[in-house]
């Protein structure tokens, strides 16, 4: 375990410390490849699948492209912050949320990651049950009520033990899982396009639309907006390692805003063709028995790797925030995912889960953009980001302006759309909910930080900016 412990410590220090010049190894294309590899996952496929249940191919394409690209355009400028200072997301967010607030935001990220991990593992469990249904083993193992949770939990145990061993073991797994999901996506795309033809696909009707087209379209859009905003906590992980701010910005926009859409579009088209949003049912319906079985094996491997990556991401981020916690304790924070695997309830509520993410991340996005660009005017004290008794302590470690923005953003989002009950106001059908909540949160944060809870750290920046403008005027 010595070698593994050392590689974990190395990863913790690497994630915690601001990236030095020799750590800046990524150019734009390197970052695009890494982020697309991470981004294309079962989450994208399922988002597309639910889109394909509600709208046709043309409307789905519009909802997917806009739903991913626009939220990313709204939040991608924050990668400039991570690239400039070489810091990870949760250290960077200390300037806007406060030291304790950034820790609380980590727990929101952890819940999101637990949800993603559970979705990946449950889908893998379903794929195993589908494969086993071709054998003559007892019905207990092939029943969706007992077999799927059983295999999903077994896969959790495998993912846990691989992640526990640290990055060396994970790297080996990535060589299997990432190509598996890539082969699966390309194979499915070829089979659908060649088997059906685009004209036929464009003429297909969705299986479960709402009564009104505008309601179907906006709900599909909101789902995709949720996916777009959901990348927010992941933006700092690799953007801090690029050679220029421009590379971080462009690579993030193209990977998360444009290229991962391949998987989302594929999910939507396949759902339209097959009529169900369940990826494990697509394989046999589209590819026949033998190729379908290979597809199911690839889906299992891809989802297991995704779960390992998600687990590691959650645990290493915890260690970055609490460097003194032990690796085992950090690993145990992934265990609640097991409760989400006990039945299909959470997996079947994936669309509600994504809209809850749209609600949380759109508000957080508005806060961090307003803070870095409009309140702090891109002037951050690197020392105080790490000195947790420093400038960003605000009120007991929490920034009241962030709290105010969360309250106003919540009122706006839930006033427009209730993601848990899927109840929408009349206005939702025109303006959706996540994007207005982003702007409400951004404007509220700006007003609050400038005029209501104006802390010295924000006033200093305004004073410095005014002095700089005066200097330029004097020079003229």
């Amino acid at each position, binding site marked *: 375990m010595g070698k593994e412990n050392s590689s974990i410590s190395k990863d913790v*220090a690497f994630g915690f410390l*601001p990236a030095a010049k020799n750590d800046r190894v990524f150019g734009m294309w390197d970052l695009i490849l890494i982020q697309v590899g991470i981004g294309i996952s079962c989450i994208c496929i399922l988002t597309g699948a639910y889109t394909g249940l509600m709208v046709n191919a043309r409307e789905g394409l519009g909802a997917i*492209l806009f739903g991913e690209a626009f939220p990313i355009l709204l939040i991608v400028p924050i990668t400039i912050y991570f690239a400039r200072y070489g810091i990870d997301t949760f250290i960077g967010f200390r300037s806007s949320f406060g030291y304790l607030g950034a820790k609380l935001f980590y727990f929101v990220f952890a819940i999101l990651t637990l949800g993603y991990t559970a979705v990946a593992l449950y889908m893998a469990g379903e794929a195993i049950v589908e494969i086993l249904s071709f054998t003559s083993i007892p019905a207990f193992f092939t029943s969706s009520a007992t077999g799927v949770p059983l295999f999903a939990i077994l896969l959790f145990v495998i993912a846990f033990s691989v992640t526990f061993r640290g990055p060396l073991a994970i790297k080996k797994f990535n060589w299997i899982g990432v190509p598996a999901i890539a082969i699966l996506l390309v194979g499915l795309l070829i089979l659908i396009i060649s088997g059906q033809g685009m004209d036929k696909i464009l003429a297909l009707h969705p299986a479960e639309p709402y009564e009104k087209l505008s309601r179907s379209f906006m709900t599909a859009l909101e789902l995709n907006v949720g996916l777009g905003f959901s990348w927010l906590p992941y933006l700092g992980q690799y953007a801090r390692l690029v050679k220029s701010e421009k590379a971080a910005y462009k690579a993030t926009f193209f990977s998360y805003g444009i290229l991962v859409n391949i998987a989302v579009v594929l999910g939507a088209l396949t759902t339209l063709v097959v009529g169900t949003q369940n990826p494990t049912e697509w394989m046999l319906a589209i590819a026949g028995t033998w190729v379908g079985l290979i597809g199911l094996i690839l889906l299992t491997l891809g989802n297991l790797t995704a779960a390992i990556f998600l687990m590691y991401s959650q645990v290493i981020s915890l260690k970055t925030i609490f*460097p003194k916690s032990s690796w085992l304790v950090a690993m145990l924070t992934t265990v609640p995912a097991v409760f989400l695997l006990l039945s299909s309830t959470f997996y079947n509520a994936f669309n509600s889960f994504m809209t809850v993410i749209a609600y949380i991340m759109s508000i957080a996005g508005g806060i961090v953009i307003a803070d870095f660009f409009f309140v702090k005017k891109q002037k951050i004290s690197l020392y105080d980001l790490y000195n*947790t008794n420093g400038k960003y302590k605000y009120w007991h470690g929490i920034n009241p302006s962030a709290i105010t923005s969360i309250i106003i953003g919540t009122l706006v989002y839930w006033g427009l759309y209730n993601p848990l009950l899927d109840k929408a106001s009349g206005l939702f059908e025109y303006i959706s909910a996540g994007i207005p909540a982003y702007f409400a949160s951004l404007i509220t944060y700006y007003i609050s930080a400038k005029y209501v809870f104006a802390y010295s750290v924000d006033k200093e920046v305004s004073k410095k900016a005014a002095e700089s403008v005066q200097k330029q005027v004097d020079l003229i």
Partner: protein
Amino acid sequence: MKQKDHIQKNMESNDPFIKGMYTDLHNRIQDYQESDSIVEKMKFSDAKGSIVIVGIIAAFLAYVLVS
């Protein structure tokens, strides 16, 4: 009463991992402050491509919705 600096405190930690990490942190922050920035800064013009692409997507969306 002024609270003790978190970084300085951890640089004196008994845990060699914490002590080493915070000492490295202190040195990196000093390097950063001396050189101001170690990466090339972005200009607004660098964002034009992404704005144009989102504009095209928005136009496509509008076309889909009205047609």
